[in-house]
């Protein structure tokens, strides 16, 4: 039976982990994801999970343990944040290169310097080319739903690629909400039994994992790796629909909010989308034709679908909770602008960096963006392609 529980984001992920009960959980605590690890450790101590819980000396080691355990044939997960994810860098690429379906919950947080423990997307955006599937969550419910689906996506035979699920540090990780926790048996049934392809623990077969490739094979192996994530859109879509049928909350690549007849659109991921929807409601009540698009899957990037959804807009603002210093724009913006390049119609697209280091984004800031979009739509002119929201200038 599904139950309603009051949980914060960290407890929600831990609860999902308890239900799924992976063979191995290896993690090193770091703010703001510490409570995921702490709660899981408590579950282990209380005998509520049967999998191994390993707490090694660093995140680099935690991901190394995950890789070893997954290569051995286990269903494996971890959780981390910020510098912790940064310390995993080297191993993230190896997990993806070895096509190990590891699932990681990331409480999205800024990177140093300056030291800051609050939420933004710098950590996972930094890992965007590591070969992991990236799914972002607006609230605790989505964090739970995404985390459950992540195992199915990662373990699908056409995909076999690690998945990370982002939830905004503190804003989601530490805020309590009512979360619908599904029946444990049904969750287990939805996930199914994991069958590793070439488990090292199967000693009847001699094989090597991760041996050296020189110029004659590296390129082919990398292309072989890319195929997994290239296959994933169909799988992500199917599993999102199946999840919807079973639990009543269907998922796709992005959510469109009040986009039916919209001429202006704000694109924003994760928790800020909630605030954005409130702003859209207010602006709609004033008769403004504005909508919001919330990307859920960032890797693989659903470029065709997003271009289709945005091409008829007059003006689009893409809000990024990370920066890419020296780049043409922040990560989400460059993807979207590039996605629109081949469209028959192209809206004006501007970029705002917001919320770095946990800086608030409020309804008034979305209104500021909307006012600029109105101006761009009316004049057809863009004064500044890139800007910053709620920054002291």
């Amino acid at each position: 039976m599904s139950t309603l529980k009051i949980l914060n984001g960290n407890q929600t992920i831990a609860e999902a982990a308890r239900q799924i009960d992976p063979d191995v959980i290896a993690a090193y605590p770091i703010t703001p994801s510490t409570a995921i690890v702490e709660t899981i450790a408590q579950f282990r101590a209380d005998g509520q999970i049967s999998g191994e819980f390993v707490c090694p000396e660093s995140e680099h080691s935690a991901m190394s343990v995950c890789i070893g355990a997954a290569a051995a044939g286990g269903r494996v997960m971890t959780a981390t944040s910020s510098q912790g994810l940064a310390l995993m860098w080297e191993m993230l690429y190896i997990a993806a290169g070895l096509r190990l379906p590891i699932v990681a919950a990331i409480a999205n947080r800024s990177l140093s310097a300056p030291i800051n423990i609050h939420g933004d997307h710098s950590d996972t955006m930094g890992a965007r080319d590591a070969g992991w599937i990236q799914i972002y969550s607006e609230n605790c419910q989505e964090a739970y739903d995404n985390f459950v689906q992540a195992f199915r996506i990662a373990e699908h035979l056409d995909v076999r690629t690690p998945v990370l699920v982002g939830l905004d540090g503190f804003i989601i990780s530490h805020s309590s909400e009512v979360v619908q926790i599904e029946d444990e048996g049904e969750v287990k049934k939805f996930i199914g039994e994991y069958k590793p392809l070439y488990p090292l623990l199967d000693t009847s077969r001699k094989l090597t994992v991760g041996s050296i490739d020189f110029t004659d094979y590296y390129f082919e192996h990398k292309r072989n790796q890319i195929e997994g994530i290239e296959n994933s859109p169909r799988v992500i879509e199917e599993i999102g629909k199946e999840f919807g049928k079973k639990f009543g909350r269907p998922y796709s690549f992005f959510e469109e909010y009040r986009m039916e007849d919209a001429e202006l659109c704000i694109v924003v991921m994760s928790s800020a989308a909630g605030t954005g929807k409130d702003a859209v409601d207010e602006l709609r009540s004033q008769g403004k034709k504005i909508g919001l698009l919330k990307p859920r899957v960032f890797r693989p990037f659903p470029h065709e679908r997003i271009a289709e959804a945005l091409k008829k807009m007059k003006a689009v603002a893409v809000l990024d909770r990370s920066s890419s210093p020296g780049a043409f724009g922040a990560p989400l913006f460059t993807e979207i602008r590039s996605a629109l390049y081949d469209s028959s119609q192209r809206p004006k697209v501007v970029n705002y960096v917001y919320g770095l280091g946990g800086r608030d984004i409020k309804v008034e800031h979305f209104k500021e963006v909307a006012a600029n979009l109105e101006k761009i739509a009316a004049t057809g002119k863009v004064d500044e392609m890139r800007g910053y929201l709620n920054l002291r200038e």
Partner: protein
Amino acid sequence: MKKETWKELTIGTINLEAGNSVSNLTGTWRSGRKPEFIEKNCIQCFFCWLYCPHFAIRVEGGKVTGFKYNYCTGCGLCAEECPTKEKSIVMVKEEIKLTEGRKK
């Protein structure tokens, strides 16, 4: 040997022919010096066998008898680690014969 296309490769860099590095003749990396075995000084301590990174110490009938030059990279670790008073392994100059390339 025909090399596989990316579609023909096993997922996740899995190599189903474990041990096939035996076909990789690392001896072709040697450049200018090679170890030489001086049997009369050898006390059969097996230090060279233990330290050799390429398993290039030849052992026959339980005794070190020399080197598998097809795999010896000429790194000199064996000579360095050899503990006998008069060295049982010394590094000597080697002329590189271009005809001794990788086996096809």
